[in-house]
């Protein structure tokens, strides 16, 4: 667990600009890196993941693909096996269903099946999440699904600096890394932004180690474990409740695989109260694993029932009011914190 302090000079960038900066710097550093996916060229990525990169690196390294996820993810895997460092984009996590085999049975397992003799240094980027009425097939997070399947690291940045640092680390990692960015953190001009979507980002080479959670806010009364966009909702609520004397510690997991269990245990050991906020589906996912991390060690650490705020096992509804009723938004998070700290 680390509390990241910026190592050197910074500027304010949006999360998408910070992510692009990391990709650009690594592509300059290493000619074996290339970026491939749908609409990553002239369009610059539907969610701004490659803005400006085509002009800088040309169509040989910023490559538009057909709508053939199985083929081009497999292409990335094969290129990685031969020593290249592909970054492959699946436009939405929701589309994993047409290509999961290449992801979980190939990209993620080849290293193990080869007894460690073959490496697959590849980054698989995906946009995730809802909140803008895109319906049940374009609003899912699904990071719990990727984290459940062995052989791939899973990173989930929540802010510009981590987006840059984790992307740099992911590209340099010798393992497959699934890099999931929530659309709501990117700071896109055409989508509602939280105020932290544009923030200080270190200049130059900047890495954030994969597998280390970040204490986004220190507090002593209750531990709120969360990730990605929900970090911001959690911080908003924490700030709102502070004047009432409710002191919330917000832990930003930053990566699910590896999971920083020490960070979870350290914080819950301090507060004795646990709230987990996850925009993925409630059951059989992230929230249960966070809880089990504690009970594997000592259930006695938990002084009150755990509050899990997640999507209640329902497809994401289209209508705004229905969607916001199932998303883990401020109202539900506040209620959970109040309940956890009420006794």
């Amino acid at each position: 667990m680390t509390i990241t302090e910026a190592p050197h000079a910074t500027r304010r960038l949006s999360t998408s600009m910070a992510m692009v900066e990391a990709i650009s710097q690594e592509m300059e550093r290493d000619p074996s890196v290339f970026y491939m996916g749908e609409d990553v060229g002239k369009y610059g990525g539907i969610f701004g993941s490659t803005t400006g990169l085509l002009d800088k690196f040309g169509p040989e390294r910023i490559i538009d693909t057909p709508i053939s996820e199985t083929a081009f993810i497999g292409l990335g895997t094969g290129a990685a096996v031969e020593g290249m460092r592909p970054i492959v984009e699946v436009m939405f996590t929701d589309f994993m269903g047409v290509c999961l085999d290449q992801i979980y049975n190939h990209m993620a397992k080849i290293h193990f099946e080869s007894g460690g003799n073959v490496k697959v240094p590849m980054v698989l980027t995906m946009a995730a999440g809802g909140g803008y009425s895109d319906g049940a097939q374009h609003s899912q997070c699904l990071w719990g699904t990727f984290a459940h399947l062995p052989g791939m690291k899973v990173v989930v940045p929540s802010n510009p600096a981590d987006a840059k640092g984790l992307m740099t680390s992911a590209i340099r990692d010798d393992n497959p890394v699934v890099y999931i960015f929530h659309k709501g953190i990117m700071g896109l001009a055409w989508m509602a932004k939280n105020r932290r979507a544009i923030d200080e980002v270190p200049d130059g080479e900047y890495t954030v180690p994969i597998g280390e959670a970040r204490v986004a806010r220190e507090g002593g009364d209750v531990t709120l474990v969360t990730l990605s966009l929900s970090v911001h909702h959690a911080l908003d609520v924490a700030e709102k409740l502070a004047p009432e004397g409710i002191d919330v510690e917000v832990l930003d997991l930053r990566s699910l695989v590896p999971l920083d269990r020490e960070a979870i245990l350290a914080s819950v050991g301090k507060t004795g109260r646990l709230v987990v906020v996850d925009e993925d589906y409630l059951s059989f996912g992230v929230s249960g694993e966070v809880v089990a991390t504690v009970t594997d060690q000592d259930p006695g650490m938990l002084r009150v029932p755990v509050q899990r705020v997640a999507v209640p096992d329902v497809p994401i509804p289209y209508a705004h009011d229905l969607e916001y009723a199932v998303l883990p938004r401020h109202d539900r998070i506040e209620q959970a914190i109040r309940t956890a700290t009420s006794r």
Partner: protein
Amino acid sequence: MTTEAASSASIPQQARGRAAPLDPAVRVKLYETMALSRAFEEAILSEYHADKGPGFDIGKGLIPGEMHLSAGQEPVAAGFCAHLTADDAVTATHRPHHFAIAHGVDLRKMAAEIYGRETGLGRGRGGHMHLFDPETHFSCSGIIAEGYPPALGQAFAFMRRGTDRIAVAVTGEGAANQGGFHESLNLAALWKLPVVFVVEDNDWGISVPRTASTSISSNADRAAAYGIPGERVENDVEAVYDAAGRAVARARAGQGPSLIEVHTLRLWGHFEGDAQGYRPELSEVSEHDPIPRYEQLLRNDGLLDDEKVAEIKRLVDTAVGDAIDFAKSSPVPDPTSATSHVFA
């Protein structure tokens, strides 16, 4: 709403390679269907953008979320659905409105779904990419090419019941490079399922031109890989009507599936908010609008005149206005019901 007045003797048949002239009533109906579809899309277009500001926030307004409109592709839906009844199934894509309208999905319930209302086709749960209408066996999916497989099952059920009902499955040309496309065509051909596969080739998959996604110039040539007929026609509603007629008749006769690609036109952006910076000759796109062209043809053939055109415009505007009024005056779903309808 059709006229017998004019003879169609003046129609240059060869031009559309038809033996017998097309019934004037059918021709006017094709025009009306396209006009209704376009009126709906234009209304949604302005309604969608009406309250997205300041700036453009995709999540804001009475119609939030992605919006894929079908302007320019009306000939495909009108030409195919003219051969269908409400007992036939249609599975459409993320760009479904023209097929829903041409297939006769209730305009009010459809509009209400797009507005996310309790009176909508999906009680506001689905949205514009997820329109399900049991009454006309219409459905769509937002996942590329994945609308094809369910159509096989509907056709399978129709066949097993000994009916001559069929399923029409629609995708775009970009989707024709997705695995589900291939699996569906092989299985339908193998089992001689009563399906008609439609590929709407509007030259673009978002920002990726067909030449950058597809290794050959016509998906009709892929039909041979399954031993079924394949045909490619231009964005002319009567050419589509003719090709569709052949494919539908073949399916109804139990002779199995066909693949028809229509080289159509995406008149607007991929979705609303798409600046189309990637698209050359953007300014000239509207010149290829198929509806004014067809209107002119029917005027030349004496089937339409100013009065008739105005009357049709009145009727479609009224229908669309009524649907949108219905939607906007319908109740929004009760948030406490958000978790209902997960299971039957």
